[in-house]
């Protein structure tokens, strides 16, 4: 089993005619993802990688019975593309785009509270259910099907941890990048809830980083609601206050919230072992299984 996506997920690629959209459509299809349509205004009627392109997401969803989309649309237009997918409506929208204005995302966030659609991202690598389907830009070859769920705010850090797992023969049910922006759709708690409900997921890795209080909230959720064991990793222990560490969300505020220490403490208090290195995270997971 898996969460959110599997071999039956029917995917629309928004922005399929752009460079990134085209490349990753090919990559996704090679991996086995069921890409059924593209959506780009004004490009309806074209084909990309043999996939029909529609002018609107709603048309694509209707004609091709799609239920998910991946958004490769430039930042200035990405929030509009997400709204389009939310209102189509689709079940799942994965927004890869980095650099969407925060106020646009606040509006998207408001809409999310009104619809049943789930958003992953933005500024995320996507989601993969190894051997079945990937939506996004994750390198499929490092993943392996198995029993560990993974949720992370970061892209390459996710790959690092997955690599540590896979190299020990520990596979994954589903791996989710929730994105590094201050305002995102699916958060740790949402993902943890799904993994908790998934019968095949026997342990979960949660990779957090400095900034915000999502990890602290997740720790509380784990303590109160989860039987499935969770191991954690927090990036940014050495980050100085007030500096943005790459991700728009990765900033330790001057007032002492959002620090790695606070997050690690919260996770430890919730019974979640936090690795000092990515490899130590894999050690903890190995212990759980």
């Amino acid at each position, binding site marked *: 089993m898996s969460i959110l996506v599997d071999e039956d997920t029917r995917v629309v690629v928004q922005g399929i005619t752009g460079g990134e959209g085209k490349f990753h459509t090919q990559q996704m299809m090679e991996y086995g993802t069921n890409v059924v349509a593209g959506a780009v205004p004004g490009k309806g009627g074209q084909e990309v990688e043999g996939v029909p392109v529609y002018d609107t997401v709603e048309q694509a969803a209707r004609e091709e019975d799609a239920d998910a989309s991946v958004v490769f649309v430039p*930042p*200035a237009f990405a929030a509009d593309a997400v709204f389009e997918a939310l209102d189509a409506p689709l079940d799942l929208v994965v927004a890869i785009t980095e650099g*969407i*204005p*925060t*106020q*646009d*995302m*606040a*509006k998207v*966030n*408001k*809409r999310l509270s009104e619809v049943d659609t789930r958003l992953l991202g933005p500024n995320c*690598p996507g989601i993969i259910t190894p051997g079945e389907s990937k939506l996004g*830009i*994750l*390198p499929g*070859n*490092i993943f392996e099907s198995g029993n560990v769920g993974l949720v*992370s*705010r*970061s*892209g*390459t*850090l*996710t*790959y*690092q941890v997955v*690599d540590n797992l896979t190299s020990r023969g520990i596979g994954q049910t589903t791996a989710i990048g929730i994105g*590094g922006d*201050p*305002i995102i759709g699916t958060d740790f708690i949402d993902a943890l809830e799904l993994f908790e409900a998934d019968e095949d997921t026997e342990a979960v890795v949660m990779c957090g*980083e*400095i900034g*915000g209080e*999502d990890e602290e909230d997740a720790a509380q959720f784990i303590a109160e609601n989860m039987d499935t064991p969770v191991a954690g*990793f927090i*990036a*940014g*222990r*050495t*980050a*100085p206050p007030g*500096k*943005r*560490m*790459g*991700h*728009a*969300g*990765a900033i330790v*505020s*001057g*007032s*002492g919230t959002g620090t*790695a220490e606070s997050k690690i403490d919260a996770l430890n208090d919730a019974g979640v072992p936090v690795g*000092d*290195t*990515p*490899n130590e995270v894999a050690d903890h997971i190995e212990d759980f299984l």
Partner: protein
Amino acid sequence: MKLHEYQAKRVFADAGIPTPASALASSVDEVVDAAEEIGYPVAVKAQVHVGGRGKAGGIKLADDREEAEQAAEDILGMDLKGYTVEEVLVEEAVNFKNELYVGVTMDRGEGEPVAMVSTKGGVNIEEVAEEDPDAIAREHVDPAFGMHGYQARKVVYDAGVPREVASDVASVLSTLFQLWDDRDASDIEVNPLMITEDDEVVAADAVMNIDDDALFRQPDLAEMEDETYEDDLERKAGEYGFDYVRLSGNTGIIGNGAGLVMTTLDLVDYYGGSPANFLDIGGGAKADRVANALDMVFSDENVDAVVFNIFGGITRGDEVAKGINSALEQFDEIPKRVVVRLAGTNAEEGREILNDELVTVEETLEDAVQRAVEYAEVEA
């Protein structure tokens, strides 16, 4: 992107928020002329992007020509936390009986803007937030509707603002919210908003930070950007377009992806070293970006060794390897030892391409970091 006080005040004044009479000056003569024109007392305020200007000596009051001259001489050209003061704002000093805080920011936890008002203005609001959180009234704003008029009034009355000025303060807050919304601000605040003896409100300071990701649609604000950096390295990072943060250690770090680079820093620290910087070269790193990244860490005098950590997803290991080779081949002598770790897409091919004479290759993240820390210790 931060606006200077004088820039933010212009934006506020254009939107109808009362601000004191003021003029920008970059020489002692200009300061004195401005002060004479405005009338004493005046405040002379350094225009640099650092917090706590006042405590650091960047703000001085002047009651007459002589004091204005002295203040100008003291402040112009001074070093404020690494930044040289090149411009000052000369401003009418306002008599006041109360100082308020009025601001709008994004509450990332809620994903909504929040308007804040406090009668404890004039001091760092983050300190107030910690020491006396109830002294700040807050009102969340639905981003689809924007701020309703009643919300501005509510937060003002909740903060305990005197009724005589409540309506004017609510009006300032409404305008701030409108600016926040229209101009893609991340933070906007007036602190202090002064209440004069005549119950007039005056914005005595002004903060307006713009969401970098939204500058494309705020071209006039983008033009106001003051490209001053703490040092040449930050300037280079700006030119190269890297996410870069300088730290105080001696192990230089280059990697791809914010989370992985942060992790590399953390591991340097974990293995007893000291990170010199955060440098994310981003996805799909091409040869020129690799060369630029190496140029940056090599230019940092504190750096004694470098760890180059790439996990290829989109980024291909063989391309990175070629970039590293070609960048390092240009040196007669490579200035610092470089440890490279390649993983992910085409990592094996990359490791084969890498020239062992130029770099040390390690397979795992842990080994690479430990090796770099070791080199750095030796060189230190």
